[in-house]
């Protein structure tokens, strides 16, 4: 964006752009200062922050800016910090508090120890009592601890210049996609870019990526979006996502195509073919004709006692729940 283009915008519009770029402390700048700051930020060859990080900082900044925290007293800031769930803030000075509020945890000085925290005692059960066996790593109880290792960290910078779309399966019914489109954002120009929309098109892919897929979901997002969940999908199905850009005049261009992601299976396989295998060098350990299928007729299980799908609200229920009576002594 050129200086002329920026000059034509209102202060409000400039502030929006600045925040999208993750610039802090801009809310009280005059228009000329804002333009200078923006031009300086744009002249950097590569963004020092990845889009994801930018977005997070931007949210924090605007949250504080909206409350006019620069003019607030330390007491008011403290109340705001507590309201936002920040811990270990009671002994901070005003400037430090402000830094915490605008989300600068990686450049802030070490924070004073928080008030002593005694965990609730009526814990009848030790913490192995997770509702299901997640891995209870050894941890100290949640005592807020301003770990000194944080004080000299930076956000991981991104220097990527090629478009990239990545698709990951979360569970049998949901995918997660993220994308970076720096090449086209640069080509189209930031201000024009933000006037358009992104179109996410999800396509099924046959086994081994054969190109006979069908489009299952299409939805639009603001041009500034960098990620999305994609829900209401089918288990054991392979998908691909295309990210397209629809400009303000309606023209649509495919900017990136993702890898293929396959949702996990969530039901018994329909195939009951049995094929035995004995590794080379071993004598077969059973005659391949004597077996009985234990599934599903001889096994049954209480719903919810194994995890796939049963207890996830809003997901399709699984066919043929297997109920295995728990033996009682």
């Amino acid at each position, binding site marked *: 964006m050129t200086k002329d283009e920026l000059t034509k915008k209102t202060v409000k519009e400039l502030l929006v752009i600045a925040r999208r770029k993750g610039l802090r402390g801009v809310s009280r700048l005059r228009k000329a200062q804002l333009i200078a700051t923006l031009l300086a930020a744009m002249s950097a060859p590569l963004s020092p922050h*990845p889009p*994801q990080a930018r977005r*997070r900082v931007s949210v924090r900044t605007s949250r504080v800016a909206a409350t006019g925290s620069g003019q607030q007293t330390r007491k008011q800031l403290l109340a705001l910090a507590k309201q936002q769930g920040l811990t270990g803030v009671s002994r901070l000075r005003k400037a430090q508090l402000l830094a915490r509020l605008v989300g600068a945890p990686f450049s802030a000085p070490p924070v004073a120890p928080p008030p002593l925290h*005694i965990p609730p*005692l*009526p814990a*009848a059960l*030790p913490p*192995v*009592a997770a*509702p*299901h*066996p*997640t*891995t*209870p*790593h*050894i941890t*100290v*109880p*949640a*005592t807020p*601890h301003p*770990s000194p*290792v*944080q004080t000299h*960290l930076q956000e*991981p*910078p*991104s*220097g990527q210049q090629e478009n990239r779309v990545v698709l*990951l*399966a979360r*569970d*049998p019914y*949901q995918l997660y996609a*993220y994308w970076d489109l720096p090449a086209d954002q640069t080509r189209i120009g930031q201000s024009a870019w933000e006037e358009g929309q992104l179109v996410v098109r999800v396509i099924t892919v046959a086994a081994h990526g054969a190109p006979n897929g069908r489009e299952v979901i299409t939805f639009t997002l603001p041009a500034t979006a960098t990620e999305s969940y994609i829900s209401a999908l089918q288990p*054991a199905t392979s998908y691909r996502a295309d990210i397209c850009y629809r400009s303000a005049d309606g023209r649509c261009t495919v900017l990136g195509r993702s*890898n293929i992601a*396959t949702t996990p*299976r969530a039901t*018994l*396989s329909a195939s009951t*073919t049995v*094929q*035995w295998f004995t*590794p080379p060098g*071993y004598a077969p*350990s059973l005659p*391949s004709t004597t*077996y009985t299928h*234990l599934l599903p007729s001889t096994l049954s*299980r209480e719903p919810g006692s*194994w*995890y*796939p799908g049963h207890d996830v609200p809003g997901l399709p229920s699984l066919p043929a729940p*297997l109920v*295995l009576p*728990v*033996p009682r002594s």
Partner: protein
Amino acid sequence: MAKGLLALVLHAHLPFVRHPEYEEFLEESWLYEAITETYIPLLRLLERAVQDQIPCRLTLSLSPPLLNMLDDALLQDRYVRRLERLIALAAKETARTRSDLAFYRLAQMYLELFTQARATFVDRYHCNLPQAFRQLQDAGVLEIMSCAATHGYLPLLHVNEKAVRAQVRIGIDEYQRFFMRAPAGIWLPECGYYPGLDEILQAYGIRYFIVDTHAIMYATPRPVYATYAPVYCPSGVAAYGRDADSSKQVWSSHEGYPGDPQYRDFYRDIGYDLDEAYIRPYLPPPGDRVPLGIKYYRITGHTNEKAPYDPQQARERATEHARHFVAERTQHAERFAEKMDRPPLMVAPYDAELFGHWWFEGPWWLESVIRQAAAEPGTLQLITPAEYLQRFPTNQIATPAASSWGAHGYHAVWLSDANRWIYRHLHQAADRMVELAARFPQAEGLQRRALDQAARELLLAQSSDWAFLIEQGTAPQYATARVKQHLSRFTQLYETLCADRLDEAWLSTIASQDNIFPAVDYRVYR
């Protein structure tokens, strides 16, 4: 022949936490607590099995980060200092509780526990626990499994297959460095599996891995013996499914053994209960109250009025629970034995740190299960996965379903609202590491050191623990900081390598801090 076969599998892992840049560091306590409460009791119970000639067959995975920490002189030294401070505290406690017999005996118990831990660690094992585990494997009571290099969650890394290969390959290299042999099996971090991963394992000579129940139940084609026998993936690597009932009896909040009122309460620790001035000299910096490992109360029930802990009664209860566990498994095996051509196999995997750390009586329970199974060989026989494949090499071919042992059984714990931001950076860094390995095929000197360090930083950032801790809200600031620190260091290495302006002093500093995998070779990413 036994009615059923039981494979007890423990997974021992902690993230790599080592901060030489600080005199003391709170999160290093995770290791120190686990050594005292889990690893030493485990070694001692296995040693007793060897002495008493008990036919013990236990399977244990020791993750490479844990092995590297156990092998680290700085952490060993800090652990001994920590123990000495606890011994002093326990001695002070025996004086403070002298007028109350119940508490006095408990204080003495802790004094003995810490004193013995020090004697075992320093005098008996010469601070070298990996070697102690190796000797037990060589003695035949233990089968040690490999694990991915830094416990990376492989289903979310495999957009770059070389990143997965490096995790597997370095895990196996580290296994060979510590145990002087090739591993038979690998523990997939968080039991995270996706179809095709077995092909990578097969390429590195792995013969088996363990998955959660539904990975086998939903395998394609349908598994004939459910989880009561392994299946071979099309690659020929065996996949063992977790026995859901064995797990539930130990893990479940409702039916699980560790919640018994006789057992020690984890939360009532003198780190919280006693006067701050009294315990302050024993607290690690920054001096916040944290658990110190001296706990005087039992769970008692759903009440705040906790009764004093009675170790004798707790031990008896652990023996009863072990008896119940063996009986249940035997009964279960009997139900399916007639439908199978072999005894049903039940695979019971647990986090090792559950035993002793979270569940104080866990090691007693485990020892009792081992001894009871040995005492009645006609009922339940202990077996390891590799031994099973020797005895029953013929198994069905099926592809397990993508899965994990985390909440809801898939990948959502490690890809949630709180932690999903990690992946775009991890993926980009992995691509860049592959790019570096291609660009510098035969680096030497400073360049080589920088490339090896870049591999270490990437691997450390990939640890599944950070995503887990962020999602669980346990030490999320520390976990976030670690991800960002390793990625920042990686990026700086990448940029300075590309621009040919390496900073040797800075490289030496970070290499002395993130010193995991001394023998790593960046060319694993080619």
